């Protein structure tokens, strides 16, 4: 018994060391990457670019489901982005409220015949509308089919070679499209690009724009600011150098349309369509030996509202993890497959062992350690030290994300906000992290029972003066 516990403890220790060494590698790699990205972001002369016709035209794909309260402001904000050539395709995904009517009145829509080919099969389209006042706007009205289906319908209707999937409730910074296309201007062979998603809770929002970035005072949204910084600023930047970004946020990611069409668009069966589509893109491009890059660029920013109640957050994290488990199972043949190069040999194994299985290993670790302590197989001091080191390492990574933010973009200018960031980075490991492990653990059960259940999310409006609470499906 004692030997078995000792062996299991050793195995968990090795897992812990390997995983954290990899995080350390990502951390180190993020430094030159953010250095380069910050330099490029600072030196770009965006006004000059906006006056040139060099930038590639873009279609924004905007799925909308029961967005009646905010759709006019969201679409107006999208239509006034600083970019020379783009269109916005809004898809009313069979909303039960008057989303379409709001759009019709706000933008003077008129019905036009559907004249584009349906490259990807979708739920039936009920109507295609154009605007008399905003020629950049196209609205599709279709039967409800979910976010992936709406995105596919929007891809079919899009005119331009680059498409950006945007959530209707996401606030995009005015110059974000310009920044997102920097890779194209630098002549890189971009298949997809991801931008940063930041937490809008607590920020001042006026006319669909974040005018004053703040770190929320409430713990739950506040701690998610640190999580988002960690995920984007050092996680994805580190992956840039390893050539294997497996996630481009569904709330704000740019794709080359021809590749999306080649893989058949978004999979409607997938729970997390953003990871699914990126993995399939990697697979398609590597199988066909098409040279490509899928970078993450940190300075284009989209703001999104995160859950501020434990119940909603629990559901979100369970769903994300369920989607991750389903995706790694779906694409298991890529694991350690040299045909998929760094994606198959580094990225997929990391997501399987370091992300998908991590909560399981962590809980097993806690159980075995407690069991070991009970039967006297584990030294108490050793166990406490181990937990201390594990939590300390988590704090180190979170603080490193704050360092990167401070050294580069510094969106949170006030000292009070910096103080809150440091506080949340410290407190995150005491209670919150264990909760996320538990929520993610539940996904191991629900992955078999709730394959396509998204759950309900209660969102509060962004604008300070709009108090309406919109109950809606959580979409990405």
């Amino acid at each position, binding site marked *: 018994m004692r030997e078995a516990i000792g062996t299991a403890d050793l195995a968990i220790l090795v897992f812990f060391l390997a995983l954290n060494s990899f995080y350390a590698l990502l951390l180190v790699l993020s430094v030159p990457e953010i250095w380069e990205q910050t330099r490029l972001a600072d030196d770009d002369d965006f006004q000059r670019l906006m006056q040139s016709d060099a930038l590639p035209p873009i279609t924004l794909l905007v799925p909308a489901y029961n967005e009646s309260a905010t759709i006019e402001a969201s679409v107006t904000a999208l239509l006034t982005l600083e970019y020379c050539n783009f269109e916005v395709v809004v898809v009313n995904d069979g909303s039960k409220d008057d989303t379409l009517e709001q759009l019709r009145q706000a933008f003077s829509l008129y019905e036009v015949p559907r004249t584009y080919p349906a490259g990807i099969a979708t739920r039936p389209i009920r109507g295609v509308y154009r605007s008399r006042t905003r020629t950049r706007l196209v609205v599709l009205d279709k039967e409800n089919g979910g976010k992936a289906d709406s995105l596919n319908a929007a891809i079919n209707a899009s005119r331009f070679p680059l498409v950006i999937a945007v959530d209707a409730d996401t606030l995009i910074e005015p110059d974000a499209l310009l920044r997102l296309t920097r890779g194209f*201007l*630098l002549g890189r062979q971009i298949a997809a690009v991801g931008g940063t998603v930041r937490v809008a809770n607590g920020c001042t929002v006026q006319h669909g724009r974040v005018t004053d970035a703040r770190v929320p005072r409430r713990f739950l949204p506040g701690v998610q600011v640190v999580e988002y910084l960690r995920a984007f600023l050092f996680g994805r930047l580190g992956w840039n150098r390893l050539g294997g970004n497996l996630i481009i946020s569904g709330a704000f990611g740019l794709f080359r349309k021809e590749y999306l069409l080649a893989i058949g668009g978004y999979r409607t069966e997938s729970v997390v369509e953003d990871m699914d589509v990126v993995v399939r893109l990697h697979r398609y491009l590597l199988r066909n030996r098409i040279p490509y890059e899928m970078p993450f660029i940190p300075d284009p920013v989209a703001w999104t509202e995160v859950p501020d109640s434990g119940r909603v957050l629990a559901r979100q994290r369970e769903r994300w993890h369920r989607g991750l488990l389903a995706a790694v199972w779906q694409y298991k043949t890529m694991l350690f497959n040299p045909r998929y190069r760094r994606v198959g040999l580094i990225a997929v194994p990391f997501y399987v062992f370091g992300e998908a299985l991590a909560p399981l290993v962590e809980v097993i670790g806690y159980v075995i350690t407690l069991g070991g302590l009970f039967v006297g197989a584990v030294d108490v001091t050793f166990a406490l030290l*181990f937990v201390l080191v594990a939590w300390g390492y988590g704090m180190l990574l979170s603080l490193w994300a704050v360092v990167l933010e401070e050294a580069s973009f510094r969106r949170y200018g006030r000292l009070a906000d910096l103080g809150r960031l440091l506080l949340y980075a410290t407190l995150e490991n005491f209670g919150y992290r264990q909760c996320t492990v538990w929520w993610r653990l539940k996904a191991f059960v629900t992955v078999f029972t709730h394959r396509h259940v998204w759950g309900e999310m209660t969102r509060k409006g962004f604008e300070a003066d709009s108090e309406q609470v919109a109950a809606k499906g959580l979409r990405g």
Partner: protein
Amino acid sequence: MRGRDFLVVVALVQGVLLGALVVLIILNRWFRLRRRARVHPRVVALNGAMQRWALGTVDLGTVLVHLSRLPIPLAVDALVSWSARVPGDRWRNLATALRGHWWARIVRSNAGSARWWKRLETARFFAVAATPEDTSHVLKLLRDPHPAVHIAAVATLERLESAALTTAALERLPRLAPTVGAYYAGMLRRSRPVVVQLLQKMLRKSDDPALPRLVEFAARLKEPPLRERLTTLAAHADPEVRIQAVRAVGGYPHPDSIAALRRAAVDAAWPVRAQAIRSLGMIADPATLPLVREALRDPEWWVRLRAGLALTRFAAPGRNVLLEAEVGGDPGARDMARLVLGLTPQALAEYAA
């Protein structure tokens, strides 16, 4: 070393690192605030001096003194931002005066730096303050392997007329990725005489795979000496060349252009037809109205759209054709006429762009 000792060491190292990170974050914030407090007044002073110099109330020396008080990256930023606001002659005086200035010499010497961001800084400086003596440096930066550097360097063409630089940029243009190529093209348009001369030679190589890109660029120039060659290329075997040439020909209201467009309007490839109809609309010769009316019944939606938009450029006769089509028997033409007649003038302008 036992496991417990190892963990103690790791915990201690982590503790030190955590403390160091917190101190680093706080120090970084403090240094930035301090630096800003020190530098900001100098930036304000420079802006004031620049403004007064632009109005002619202070001499150039004052501006140079204020520039030299700023850290080099900020001085380059200030130059970039003021370059668009100061009249050309006056700005050229500043560029010449900067030749002998100590910090400008440092910036120039970075043209050969091993660090790309230093070369980028130099390229940005040259983009606003290069003099003819800098041509060799700019040429080197134009051939830089880092895209950000050569893209910044090509902006020098806006201010410095040099056949060598123009030739280098034009030769690189067809090999660049489309977006970068389009940016280069925007810059090259400023050096028309040299570019037109070079293009005339390059457009004669009809088997050049870069021909579509060159024709696309030539179309933007709308230079009369290029018309004849572009009209010939409207019958090229490669549809991509035909599309670009037909688009270009629309910028030349000439009988030869109209003849070439009449042929292209019945091309087998619909993108060529769409482009030809668009160009016919740009020229708006009443004799071509029946051809455009016919295109309103084209099987391809995009050709019909182009025809509908082109008809709006034929004034009353074009509008009458649309009104007839709106109640006519052809469903494709009817839908398109309805769409185009429903558009506001602003929408029409946006579509036509």
